């Protein structure tokens, strides 16, 4: 279990330090000054220092999120300039630790917005309070923002009545810890977002080397009472099962793996593959999934690089949009890496704006909007400075960013039914909104 949790700023100074178990201080950590027979708190400093010395200030950038120093494991995630590190001496489930760290980031964001040094310093009492609640002796506890907000507030001390207190207690310790009873809305509304990020690696010849979509279904609900919901999508298994009865033209998708919010009844999913749940109030991430088959690749990048002698390079890149012409892709950005000895760049592009960004060693080409089934191209001349280094340019891949209004995995929401037997509103009374957004993840084409 998690032995301790530390939050560092980019200089490696500790902003938050919470120790749950004593074992993590018992190094001996290399590169850290330590003495025989020092005090417990001093030893704890060792663990803290070990991470700073070996990860944050490491000579080489540490890429692994798990670092083992002197038989102590450090799990870290980085948010902008802030490092969150969970430390343990035991053999823990690493996925659990990371899930917890991400959850913690979410909770903090929900409480005070962006995770930055400034914000953490301003809210450190709150953070300690949260840590007390969401982690007990190193075991993760309820980290549902909605539930937490009922009893950890930022609005000063508000003395709660006995009933309120007991209500909170029963809710937090009860079966449905993520939703309190007696919620009432005049308008029952429900928003469903399907957010996907599509990842691709393509060879220069246009062969797909690897591609996958990771998606999330985010739900924002304003429903009264304790509604029972049922969510349906074009999951291949479900469609096939139904397909025996009636003929469906709908495309179905094969989901490789998925995870659900804690409110989803997993037993029911296992048995019938139906997703039913009582949603928490407000926003929640209903499910996460991943697909690898039949992905719609929204863009195709065709690179053409020609080396003209030692001092010149000609680059031509064509992008083709590959979706319905009625749809519009947005925020398109193509990043063409340039060699490290670039001394000057001339760019010509038909559409959008292109610029050589020396600080990133790349030409960045931005297009605001682009309809489906279109084509656009850029050509650049790169002048090189001859160096005495014989190393050849490694030719990093051309990467791309975009946003499209459909799900590249092909996922479709078929229904979301709401039943609330106790209150008098039916499925038809609920106003439902569905939105699809497909974004680029790591979308690269080798050149």
């Amino acid at each position, binding site marked *: 279990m998690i032995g301790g949790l530390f939050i560092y700023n980019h200089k490696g100074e500790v902003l938050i330090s919470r120790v749950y178990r004593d074992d993590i201080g018992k190094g001996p950590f290399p590169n850290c000054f330590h003495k025989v027979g020092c005090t417990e708190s001093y030893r704890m400093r060792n663990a803290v220092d070990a991470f700073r010395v070996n990860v944050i200030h490491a000579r080489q950038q540490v890429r692994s999120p798990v670092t083992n120093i002197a038989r102590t494991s450090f799990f870290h995630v980085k948010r902008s300039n802030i490092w969150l590190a969970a430390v343990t001496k035991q053999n823990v489930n690493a996925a659990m630790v990371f899930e917890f760290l991400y959850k913690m980031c979410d909770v903090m964001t929900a409480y005070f917005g962006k995770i930055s040094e400034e914000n953490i310093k301003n809210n450190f009492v709150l953070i300690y309070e949260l840590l007390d609640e969401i982690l007990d002796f190193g075991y993760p506890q309820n980290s549902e923002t909605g539930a937490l907000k009922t009893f950890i507030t930022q609005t000063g001390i508000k003395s709660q009545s006995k009933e309120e207190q007991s209500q909170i207690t029963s809710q937090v310790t009860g079966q449905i810890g993520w939703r309190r009873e007696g919620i009432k809305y005049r308008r029952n509304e429900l928003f469903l977002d399907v957010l996907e990020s599509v990842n691709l690696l393509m060879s220069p010849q246009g062969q797909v080397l690897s591609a996958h979509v990771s998606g999330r279904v985010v739900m924002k609900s304003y429903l009264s009472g304790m509604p029972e919901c049922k969510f349906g999508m074009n999951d291949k298994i479900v469609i096939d099962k139904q397909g025996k009865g009636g003929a469906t033209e709908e495309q179905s998708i094969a989901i490789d793996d998925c995870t659900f919010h804690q409110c989803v009844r997993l037993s029911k999913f296992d048995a019938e593959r139906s997703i039913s749940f009582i949603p928490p109030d407000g926003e929640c991430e209903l499910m996460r999934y991943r697909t690898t088959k039949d992905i719609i690749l929204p863009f195709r990048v065709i690179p053409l690089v020609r080396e003209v002698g030692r001092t010149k390079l000609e680059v031509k890149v064509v992008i083709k949009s590959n979706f319905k012409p009625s749809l519009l892709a947005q925020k398109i950005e193509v990043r063409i890496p340039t060699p490290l*000895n*670039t001394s000057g760049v001339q760019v010509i592009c038909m559409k959008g704006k292109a610029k050589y960004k020396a*600080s*990133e060693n790349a030409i960045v080409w931005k297009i605001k909007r682009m309809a489906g089934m279109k084509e656009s191209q850029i050509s650049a001349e790169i002048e090189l400075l001859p160096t005495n280094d014989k190393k050849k340019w490694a030719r990093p891949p051309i990467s791309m960013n975009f946003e499209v209004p459909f799900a590249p995995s092909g996922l479709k929401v078929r229904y979301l039914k709401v039943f609330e037997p106790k209150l008098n509103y039916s499925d038809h009374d609920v106003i439902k909104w569905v939105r699809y957004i497909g974004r680029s993840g790591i979308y690269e084409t080798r050149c």
Partner: protein
Amino acid sequence: MPAVSKGDGMRGLAVFISDIRNCKSKEAEIKRINKELANIRSKFKGDKALDGYSKKKYVCKLLFIFLLGHDIDFGHMEAVNLLSSNKYTEKQIGYLFISVLVNSNSELIRLINNAIKNDLSSRNPTFMCLALHCIANVGSREMAEAFAGEIPRILVAGDTMDSVKQSAALCLLRLYKASPDLVLMGEWTSRVVHLLNDQHMGVVTAAISLITCLSSKNPDEFKTCVSLAVSRLSRIVSSASTDLQDYTYYFVPAPWLSCKLLRLLQCYPPPEDGAVKGRLVECLETILNKAQEPPKSKKVQHSNAKNAILFEAISLIIHYDSEPNLLVRACNQLGQFLQHRETNLRYLALESMCTLASSEFSHEAVKTHIETVINALKTERDVSVRQRAADLLYAMCDRSNAKQIVAEMLSYLETADYSIREEMVLKVAILAEKYAVDYSWYVDTILNLIRIAGDYVSEEVWYRVIQIVINRDDVQGYAAKTVFEALQAPACHENMVKVGGYILGEFGNLIAGDPRSSPLVQFNLLHSKFHLCSVPTRALLLSAYIKFINLFPETKATIQEVLRSDSQIRNSDVELQQRAVEYLKLSSIASTDVLATVLEEMPPFPERESSILAKLKKKKGPGAVSVELEDGKERGDYLSHSNGSSTPSPSADLLGLRSTAPASGATPSAGSLLVDVFSEAGPSATSAGVNDDGFLRFVCKNNGVLFENQLLQIGIKSEYRQNLGRMYLFYGNKTSVQFVSFNTTVSCPGELQSHILQLEPLVEGGAQVQQVINIECLTDFIDAPLLNIKFRYGGALQNISLKLPVTINKFFQPTEMAAADFFQRWKQLSQPQQEAQKIFKASHGMDTEVLKAKLLGLGTALLENVDPNPENYVCAGVIQTKAQQVGCLLRLEPNAQAQMYRLTLRSSKDTVSQRVCDLLAEQF
């Protein structure tokens, strides 16, 4: 770039650096650097020429980026261009970039060297200095090759500025340290030495560093510097504090220079010229007197400078070791420092006293401070000072105060810092052994040692105590009693159990008369510790048990019961199991007589150098141990007295079972089996051991059989003339089958050169082939060349490695000389490092003729009627190597009563003396 003031301050650079410093994250920093690099690249692209200022600025930025840890792969050309600028700042930045960034294999090196040459030959002193600094900073071999000839000329030229001379001296020093073979002073030597007389103190200070370094390598060439240094020193010492103006530091005249002069003098023996010596003694006295004067300033710098000179003077006095008066004064001075407030001073005083203690003149004087030192050991707060105090106690120990010192060290050991415990333990063990008048005291001390600091008692210590107990009849009973008492403590250290097991196993009978320590009680006591011990200790205890069966037949049943128990006879450890099985069988089968023979008391160990001392030496490096017990003979594990080859566990060998009882020991049967296996597979397994004494046999003779096994015999015949040798090797095939792909190679150490004539790859059965090896000795050497023989015998590949008996003495040219001549040369070679001496026990008879034959065989001339004592032998010879000739004098003093020899070697080269001495010591 915006137009900025083109002064020295480069605004662009300052802005860039402050940008970098303001970066919040590493990513931001990298972005900023990438941007700057792109900017510089576009500027360097060469569309339009850059002016010197911007070039300098951009090169500076590149340098800064490089120092931040990023790779820079351009801009070198621009930096080289800066070198030819006439502005100081531009040139300086150019040189800076080059010394930091240019590696030696760059193609630019030619251009750079050219620019440096231009600057060196310019008349501008600052440019010359810049160039010199660059050479020194790069300091590569290529630089040395290009400029090693030039710099000495600049150094001694009359018209060179003082500042350039300083730089040149230090630059030369750097080159010399990097590649000494390229810096040849030759004709410049005397002129460099005369820099000591230079008007400018800075030049002298720089030159003296160079001279010290050079003269430590070849002292003879720079001998003349001694008198110059002495006169310079006396001028400084006697000057009033205001005379030297700039070079007076807090009222102390030229402290750095004085220290360096004193250090230079430490490279040489005391000056022979009486006047010079008198002057030097005067100087040293003045320095000691000045230390007594009240300080002229309360500032710490003043006392630091003064003490620095004083300590350097004291080490010179110690180095000379010939002026009793000065030595005693130095000792008294240091005694005052022992109680000084300043920790550093106390440390240094203790350290210097350590060396003083080893001098015969000052040993007594040092001893007077014993109380203070003991006090320091107990109360000092700094562990390093305590360590020095322990060292000093060790050094000042002699017969008169050994008991006191050992007791103090033992009592300190209980509270000593963990880091120095092991060393303390070794020291106590050595002192106890060395000054033991009474061996019961020795046994007590060591057992105490094990009790107090068992974890730090190394194997050697308890081996040694056992060795001594075995060899001394008078102490055995006492040892058995003490060990028995010590073992009664509820918690014993494992080492104590080892000693106990061994001693009771050998001498338990001596205390068996007492009903309190009856055999059964002894056994039960030992066995109660058995389960707490590690495997090697258990193995030792098992051996002790079988010895018990022999000593006390009444315990036989009990012990057999123990051996028979599953935990022994089916132990998962092979060694323990084997011992249990074999001992059980031995005890049940063998008759009492056989048992008594097999398990006879251990024979006395041969006297060897204490291995503890060897260990201490190894731990601290040579020179740290100031008290020499006796000159070390061959260092070796004294436990392996029965057989030289490797043993699986020391305890097996310790009991000597291997030599006395082939059937009983655990290892012998397995061992001989292994030998058999190996002799089938290939004789190489056995060859290595044989050759080493084969090698030593050939030190004094040139012909004989070098190697022999079941397959192959190798005979050798060799002849030597001057520095050349020719060796005939005769390979005899002892089998009736031919050897296929017979191939021999010789790998020589660098100091030898060999040429081997290759053979036919086939050697018929029963045939003999001859091979010639030509050897040339380039310079003196230690390692013998290795002969590697490979061949196939019946399909199996055989591989034999042999040391060829080529030793340094083979290149001796005998020299005849008269007595007077001999002694004159003997005295000339009086430096301590030129002499090597060994005292050792005769391993063969002391027959006069045999000795003479051996000495002649060594290659030297045996000089009759030279030594006043007719028993002694003196020899002289010159070792001929290609590089140089090394004169070598030898004196062998046999002592017939003690069966001992003292062998003294003196030669003009220290390595030669040592090597010849080592070789020869094995021969008698």
